[in-house]
């Protein structure tokens, strides 16, 4: 609004320098601060804690498991006890050991698949969004087709055609899952890239004559990082779900211990009808907890991207403490110090 911009005002400098003036600098540090400090909402902290615990479990699980998960050395269908924290299966296997050992395969497949899918979706989405034109049309079409095909049935068909030794290979299974999981991320990243492409700083880089690859990697992708992270978490969530489902239906090798195979054996032995809740409940809860952790982390990223989702400025605690005439509501701005 003022005819002179902030920069020129600084250069001209006829103004008396005062300690309060550099509002711009203050704003800058504030912004940098925001970029570094993760949102401190309890939701996000909970997410970090949950995901952290499971990552540790993924690493150390097989080493700390008290018994071999496949060994049938114990009495069948034991209730949880001090010796067997989660009881045993009808075959006399220690369920707690299965759970610990299974964490690794479950999470690694989810992680690998999520990573491959995110790389795919970034390459395809950013290329389509940045280059546009027929390239975009083609790539968008491919992603839309992949979005429309229901993933699990396709996965089942593909996985069941895999040779038996591949059905127990975490990386191959992960790659196949990734093939069905990249399209959503690609669509999101494409839309975002398209909006970035027309922003001033990208335009400027283009006018200067920067190479396209350089613009994409140094100007566009850094601005996508938050969304990319969110897309990765989301995709990983999907991939874990898909892997567990495949294992549960018995398409992947039932000899590889993961939470899905645990559920497969529980279902095959009618654990639910036999009331052996300790068999199938723990893996299910673990899957849900991992999912919850990832989703809560995602909240943090979402709130970072879209400040409107952040808990509103007037928290309930503050509102209760001050004498407001009413709870803040749309169209009813509170008034201080008035009786309600």
């Amino acid at each position, binding site marked *: 609004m*003022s005819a002179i911009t902030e920069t020129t005002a600084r250069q*001209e400098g006829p103004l008396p320098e005062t300690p309060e003036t550099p509002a711009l600098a203050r704003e800058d540090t504030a912004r940098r601060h925001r970029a570094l400090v993760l949102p401190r909402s309890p939701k996000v902290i909970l997410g970090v804690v949950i995901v952290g615990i499971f990552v540790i479990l993924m690493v150390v699980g097989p080493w700390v498991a008290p018994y071999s998960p496949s060994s049938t050395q114990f009495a069948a269908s034991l209730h949880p006890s001090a010796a067997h924290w989660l009881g045993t299966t009808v075959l006399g296997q220690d369920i707690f050991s299965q759970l610990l050992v299974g964490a690794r395969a479950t999470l690694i497949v989810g992680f690998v698949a999520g990573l491959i899918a995110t790389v795919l979706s970034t390459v395809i989405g950013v290329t389509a969004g940045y280059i546009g034109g027929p390239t975009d049309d083609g790539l968008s079409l491919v992603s839309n087709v992949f979005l429309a095909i229901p993933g699990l049935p396709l996965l089942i068909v593909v996985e069941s055609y895999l040779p038996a030794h591949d059905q127990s290979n975490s990386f191959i299974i992960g790659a196949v899952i990734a093939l069905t999981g990249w399209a959503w991320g690609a669509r999101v990243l494409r839309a975002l890239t398209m909006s970035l492409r027309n922003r001033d700083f990208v335009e400027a880089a283009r006018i200067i004559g920067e190479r396209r690859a350089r613009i994409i990697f140094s100007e566009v992708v850094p601005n996508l990082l938050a969304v990319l992270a969110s897309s990765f978490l989301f995709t990983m969530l999907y991939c874990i779900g898909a892997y567990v489902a495949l294992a549960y239906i018995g398409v992947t090798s039932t000899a590889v211990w993961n939470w899905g195979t645990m559920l497969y054996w529980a279902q095959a032995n009618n654990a639910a009808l036999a009331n052996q809740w300790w068999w199938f409940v723990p893996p299910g809860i673990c899957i849900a907890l991992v999912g919850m952790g990832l989703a809560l982390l995602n909240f943090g990223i979402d709130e970072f991207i879209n400040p409107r989702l952040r808990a509103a400025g007037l928290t309930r605690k503050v509102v209760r403490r001050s004498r407001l005439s009413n709870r803040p509501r749309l169209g009813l701005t509170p008034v*201080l110090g008035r009786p309600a």
Partner: protein
Amino acid sequence: MTGVWDDDVVEAADVRASSAPAGITETQDGPGMPAALETVPETAPETALETVPEPVPGGPALAVSSRGRDKGAVVTPSERPGEALLPAPSEDDAVFEICDLSIDYGLGPGALHAVRHADLMLRRGRVLGLAGESGSGKSTLVYGATRLLRQPGVVSGGSVRLYSRRRGEEGRVVDLLAASERELRRIRWSEISVVLQSALNALNPVSTIESEFDDVLKAHRREMSRKTRRERAAELLTMVGINADRLRDHPHELSGGQRQRVMIALALALEPQVVIMDEPTTALDVVTQREIIEELIGLRDRLGFAMLFITHDLSLLIELADEIAVMYAGRIVERAGASTLYRSPRHPYTHGLLNSFPPMHGETRRMTGIPGSPPDLAAVPAGCAFRPRCLYAMERCGTEAPALVPLDGEEHEAACFLHSGDVAVPGELAR
């Protein structure tokens, strides 16, 4: 503003506008009565709202004046020979009054003070302009006053009153800050309507234009039948120069100017006494802007509503408004009649603003602008907030915040120590 109003009347009205709010509270509300609603005796002649005023013999009363002035309002006396057309304003002339209003963002020690101790008075049938740079708090002021401000906005003090006077009804005073949600809902749009900056965002993208009107009429005019509502919508749309067959259109099918016209028609649908316009023309091109302003002036002439017009474009206000208040960093720094403000700005900030925009008419001024930028609300300088940008800053400005005080005539006020009589006033602020 002198020359049209009787001096004593002006004085009376101005005392209301500028005096401490306590006095008004006592006369209007009675001490210690927070009642949101009460009746006041009818003392002034009824202002016709529903009917088109009689054309004044000899005066181009209904002609849309491109100068933004019309009967009763004041500009250059030479332009309107011998006209004193509106009923003489009396003490009850206020229709919307903001006293000592303060608005914060957030609560407690970290709260940002977006508006501090603002007084404004909108007179019946007049146009009050509120000018200031973005971030000066002008929008916050009116949204807070109408309780439309979103969180974390909080009204931290002051009072806002609507003096409702409708034909065939007893006059009433509504205290907006104490009103219940239900009461607010009742007076919203029927007494006070608001036009937002971007009509594209203000109209529901999935509704037809007709249902926008229909919703308003259904909510406030229960007695109207479906058919009457549709007729009324068509009538309103025609009134702002849009063909009634556009009623079936959706907002995205209209141009920016048309959408803004629709918003204006919508704002007038219930013949409110107060219309608040928040930068209604900012998103439009200059030609459309001009057309809309003229349309507004014409409508105001015919319908007689009072208008609070917010813009950063001071030269537009000079054309349009009867009275102008200038805001800086949450405070009102100068207030005067439009022509007075234009001819003789008293606050250095107003002076700078006037030199940032080319005037729409009249002599061209040298464009200088104001060095620097408005302060961050979180770090408003101590003393006078404008001091870091002020060319005439004195020592005193860094320690004390100047109050809005009357200058040369009761209807001109400025908040600047230059006019305290201690120092020589610079030439351009003494014209």
